[in-house]
């Protein structure tokens, strides 16, 4: 088996953006390994990002896809007013740099802008930052084993959910 080519890595990451834009959450969850790391660090007062999620605060920190399933369940529950009128989002991902770690592992850095239109309030906002993906070969194909989201504009207007970054 060959390792993913650079073009395949790019396509993989773009596809995650597309799936989130479409709010196809089952397909989104299926892109992750069960043990995946999903991490959006917070910023310290000195302008650096938190680095140790067990000793410092994160905006989101999950180890295990099970937690992402909870997020999706809440969004779909019909019992979350913040998810009742779903914002529309569009992921613009670029500048993908990929690096083969070994036969079963590829790392990729990229930058993102997620434009979000909050239908409820008729407000539009863009979240932007960098992604750090680790893709791993599994029996079920290539999956995301790690995604770090480095959100640059971290002052959140009202709310931000997993589909907005």
């Amino acid at each position, binding site marked *: 088996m060959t390792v993913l080519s650079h073009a395949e890595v790019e396509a993989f990451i773009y596809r995650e953006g597309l799936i989130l834009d479409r709010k196809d959450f089952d397909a989104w969850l299926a892109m992750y390994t069960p043990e995946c790391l999903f991490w*959006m*660090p*917070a*910023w*310290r*007062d*000195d*302008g650096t990002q*938190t680095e140790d*999620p*067990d*000793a*410092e*605060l*994160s*905006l*989101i*920190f999950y*180890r*295990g896809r*099970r*937690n992402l399933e*909870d*997020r999706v*369940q*809440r969004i779909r*529950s019909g*019992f*979350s*007013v*913040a*998810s009742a009128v779903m914002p529309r989002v569009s992921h613009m991902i670029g500048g993908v740099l990929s690096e083969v770690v070994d036969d079963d592992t590829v790392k990729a850095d990229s930058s993102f802008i997620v434009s979000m239109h909050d239908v*409820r*309030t008729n*407000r539009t906002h863009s979240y932007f930052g960098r992604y750090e993906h680790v893709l791993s070969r599994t029996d079920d194909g290539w999956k995301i084993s790690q995604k770090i989201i480095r959100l640059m504009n*971290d*002052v*959140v*207007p*009202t*709310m*931000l*959910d997993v589909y907005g970054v």
Partner: protein
Amino acid sequence: MTKQFALRDLVDDRPADGVFRVNRALFRDRELFDLEMKHVFEGGWVFIGLATQAENPNDFFTSFIGRVPIIVSRNGQGELRCLVNVCPHKGVRLVQKLCGNASRHVCPYHGWMFDSAGVNRNIKWKKGGCYSPAFDEDSHDLAEVARFGEYQGLLFASLNPDVPSLEEHLGEAAKLLDLVADKAPNGLELVPGRVTFTYAANWKMQLENCSDQYHFTSTHPSYIRILEERAKEQSVEVVQSSIGAADFWTEGAAGVTGGTMSFDHGHVLNWGIMPVSNAIADFERAEELAEKFGEAKRNWMFNMRNLTIFPNMQIAENASSQLRVIRPIGPDLTEMQTWCIAPRGESAEARRFRIRQYEDFFNPTGMATPDDTVCYEEAQMGMAEQERPGLQGHDRGMTATVEGGNEYAAMIDLKPARRVLAVAQLCDESLFASYYRAWAQRMKEVLA
């Protein structure tokens, strides 16, 4: 000044008639907002930070009192001061960083220099400046804020000198700060990582929500369902909830579930009984705390407690432990600065558990706070309605509120001005009156 707002039209406070009505204008009016910035936020004590945010000589952090930028700075001898963060020359904000360490601060505009005590150390090209003698008679130091005080490592300040002492301002509510501070024998600290968010609604929505037991089951059912499932599952992958281990919020809870207490100067507590259990990060010190402070006070330290120190500080000890600072930006825009507040020196495992419990519940990127802030914004839209100005959101508990304390308050020698002892489904709202009475007190000079 013409007094265009009449208090009786804004806050209709008639306890004898069982009436307490707050006018929606308090949430939307621009002129009223400007007045409350001056008279509530810049006219009395506000919370500004923790002493541990500037711990060592020449450490500093910056913030705001109302609209005024401030710097809290420790001088070379370790004395803490609260200074107006504005160069007296052209009014430029002197220090831009959120925190740091510096023995000298140089204004970025014309280079005036100040030491960490705020003393002017240099005026660029002073000798050649042809200044008049009158200039030399003025102080060129950074202005010190009028009042500055520390209680249990918590820092408060007032731009207005004509205020009661900090001790008097906090009053009996200081004992509730003790519950937070005494739980931390090595002091309190802010877990690194500040989370800031805004919402498009008035600051009083947050003020009330912290003390609003009524909303929990109707605003957060999606989160509660997840708690219930996680509790059943006991998976190591998902964090267990402290709230899930208690029943004070459930409609079928038996007996006393908690209650509210209100204090002079606008401070209020909403509390609920939580068992002393390993669902709370402080459990590792449960025995030690009972030995040191007695079982009753220890048990209070484990109770759910949402405390507001009027007007801008809230400590929520429920799903985890959060410090919030409310910063009004406009009548319909509020900035929330939030931190996980924690005892120094707790075990790595307790810290990890505290942080994980925190993120899911409190963050604007979590599973509970967004449902609150969206409701604030929906309320803000409703505040536009003027035909029926009086809100009906301050009426629950009206016949249950009584003066003084009760047996629960007595456990920690607490003497609130008023209290409500709650059984399931009471969800007192009468405690909010304390906010608006303090608001009216600070606004009294500008209200007819």
